[in-house]
């Protein structure tokens, strides 16, 4: 809770930066604030407190995810701070990012559908503005509008689902809904429709097939730094909320939604991976790969057993760290304006260190040992297997193999023998190096001892 309050206040402070003329201090203030928030999360560990008449519930699950999104934002700040610097609107950009983060934390820690809805909307509305924040770029405009229309449309479904659940159970409280549903004897049609509508709304937000079509466009059109934020923080928060809602609240209705989630999970990972193979743009490939990763994480929700929470947590972190590294490289490329995979040709010859670290990150995203991604996938598959989803695991393994192909396309490009001209290669500034090296080291570190992260919340 303290973290949520600190970050909301930081957002308000950031908005004042323009008026009160402390723009130069803005980045240090935000970074300090985020570190303090992270420290309060660590201090609150194992406290298990319910706040505001059971609106928010900070158990270890919520604290772990809160810590994760704050940590990812801090890593993002390494190159993200540029986004606050080179324009006259930097205070607003910083405020929007921080509001987005506070929305994410509200969404992670909700214990009442009201707070869930508010958190989701704080997150989404900030993101609509951020996606469209490059005002002169038509592609950014278009991404903003598409994201806005699709997001608001999904919110409509989500709300209708919430209204139906409320009609059946007369409460918004997760525990209350769970108790009312367990008792039975309430209109089953209304409850089932409600659960499925909420599921549709959530699947939109996590960009799962068949509701994924906005994601590649929005990821491609948004400014790279915003895409980076969307692919990491937002996805982690959305999955945390998804799992929390369905594991505490609708567990007694598992016959209704588990088959749907399992089937859509298979479709999502196949579709994301197959579409990613055909992309020539690195950014768009990462967008499709993020859809595929959403599919893997849905496996854990379909399996819904005691290892699910831990494996979603591990996977979300492994994937976010990997994506941060990949996007750091992409951001360095976008300075030249060339975002295609062939823009990386021969980087291995000219900057071997960068190429090695980027390859490590690609290994992690593809799920090859000994990097984080492999163990994250291993735990997900293991959870699905003991949940009895052998067919789903087979599909997941097959689609991972497809995934290996396109991640290796990047690695082959890096080590091509006929490099493109040196001046066309991405220019990596020190901040890109730092982020790339940090993410590679963290990926390796998680790979060396993956179990402790998972045991945090299992």
């Amino acid at each position, binding site marked *: 809770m303290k973290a949520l309050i600190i970050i909301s206040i930081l957002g308000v402070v950031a908005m004042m930066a323009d008026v009160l003329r402390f723009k130069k201090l803005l980045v240090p203030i935000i970074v300090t604030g985020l570190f303090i928030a992270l420290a309060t999360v660590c201090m609150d560990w194992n406290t298990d407190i319910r706040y505001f008449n059971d609106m928010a519930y900070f158990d270890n699950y919520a604290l772990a995810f809160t810590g994760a999104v704050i940590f990812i934002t801090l890593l993002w700040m390494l190159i993200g701070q540029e986004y606050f610097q080179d324009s006259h609107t930097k205070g607003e950009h910083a405020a929007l990012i921080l509001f987005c983060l506070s929305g994410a934390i509200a969404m992670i820690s909700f214990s009442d559908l009201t707070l869930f*809805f508010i958190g989701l909307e704080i997150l989404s*509305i900030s993101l609509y503005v951020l996606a469209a924040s490059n005002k002169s770029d038509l*592609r950014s405009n278009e991404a903003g509008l598409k994201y806005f229309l699709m997001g*608001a449309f999904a919110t409509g479904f989500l709300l209708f689902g919430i209204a139906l659940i409320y009609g059946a159970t007369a409460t918004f409280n997760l525990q209350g809904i769970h108790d009312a549903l367990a008792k039975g004897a309430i209109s089953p049609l209304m409850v089932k429709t409600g659960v499925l509508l909420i599921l549709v709304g959530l699947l939109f937000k996590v960009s799962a097939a068949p509701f994924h079509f906005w994601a590649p466009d929005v990821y491609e059109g948004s400014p790279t730094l915003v895409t980076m934020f969307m692919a990491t923080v937002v996805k982690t928060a959305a999955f945390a909320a998804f799992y929390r809602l369905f594991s505490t609240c609708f567990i007694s209705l598992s016959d209704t939604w588990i088959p749907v989630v399992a089937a859509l999970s298979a479709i999502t990972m196949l579709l994301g991976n197959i579409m990613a193979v055909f992309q020539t743009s690195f950014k768009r490939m990462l967008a499709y790969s993020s859809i595929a990763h959403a599919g893997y994480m849905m496996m854990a929700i379909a399996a819904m057993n005691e290892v699910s929470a831990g494996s979603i947590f591990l996977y979300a972190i492994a994937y976010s760290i990997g994506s941060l590294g990949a996007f750091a490289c992409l951001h360095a490329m976008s300075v030249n304006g060339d975002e295609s995979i062939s823009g990386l040709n021969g980087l291995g010859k000219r900057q071997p260190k960068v190429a090695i670290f980027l390859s490590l990150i690609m290994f992690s995203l593809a799920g090859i040992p000994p990097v984080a991604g492999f163990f994250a996938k291993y735990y997900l598959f293991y959870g699905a297997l003991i949940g009895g989803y052998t067919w789903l695991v087979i599909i997941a393994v097959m689609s991972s193999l497809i995934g290996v192909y396109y991640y290796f396309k990047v690695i082959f490009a890096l080590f091509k023998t006929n490099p493109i001209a040196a001046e066309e290669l991405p220019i990596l500034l020190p901040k890109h190096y730092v982020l790339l090296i940090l993410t590679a080291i963290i990926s390796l570190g998680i790979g060396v001892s993956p179990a402790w992260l998972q045991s945090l919340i299992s």
Partner: protein
Amino acid sequence: MNSILSVVPIEYYLGLSVILFTIGVMGVLFRRNAIIVFMCIELMLNAVNLLLTAFSTLHGEAGGQVMVFFIMAVAAAEVAVGLAILVMIYNNLRTVDIKEMNKLKW
């Protein structure tokens, strides 16, 4: 308050909400003008508001009506952001037709 529901039963409210919601969904799917699409989304949200108010009366519980206030506040924020994005697009493209927005391949 329950006397209202004895005159018009809850099923009627449910039916009306579903109809309004469906009109909204159809509008989003089939209209091309971004502003109309936008109005249809608002229609969806208002269908939900109507439903929540009716259920709130049915259960004699205030939570539903409080939720309606939250939804209205959020919808207002969404309108502000959405219209700003639309104005920006109109300035750049001189149209708000969704079919014209094809810089990103679908």
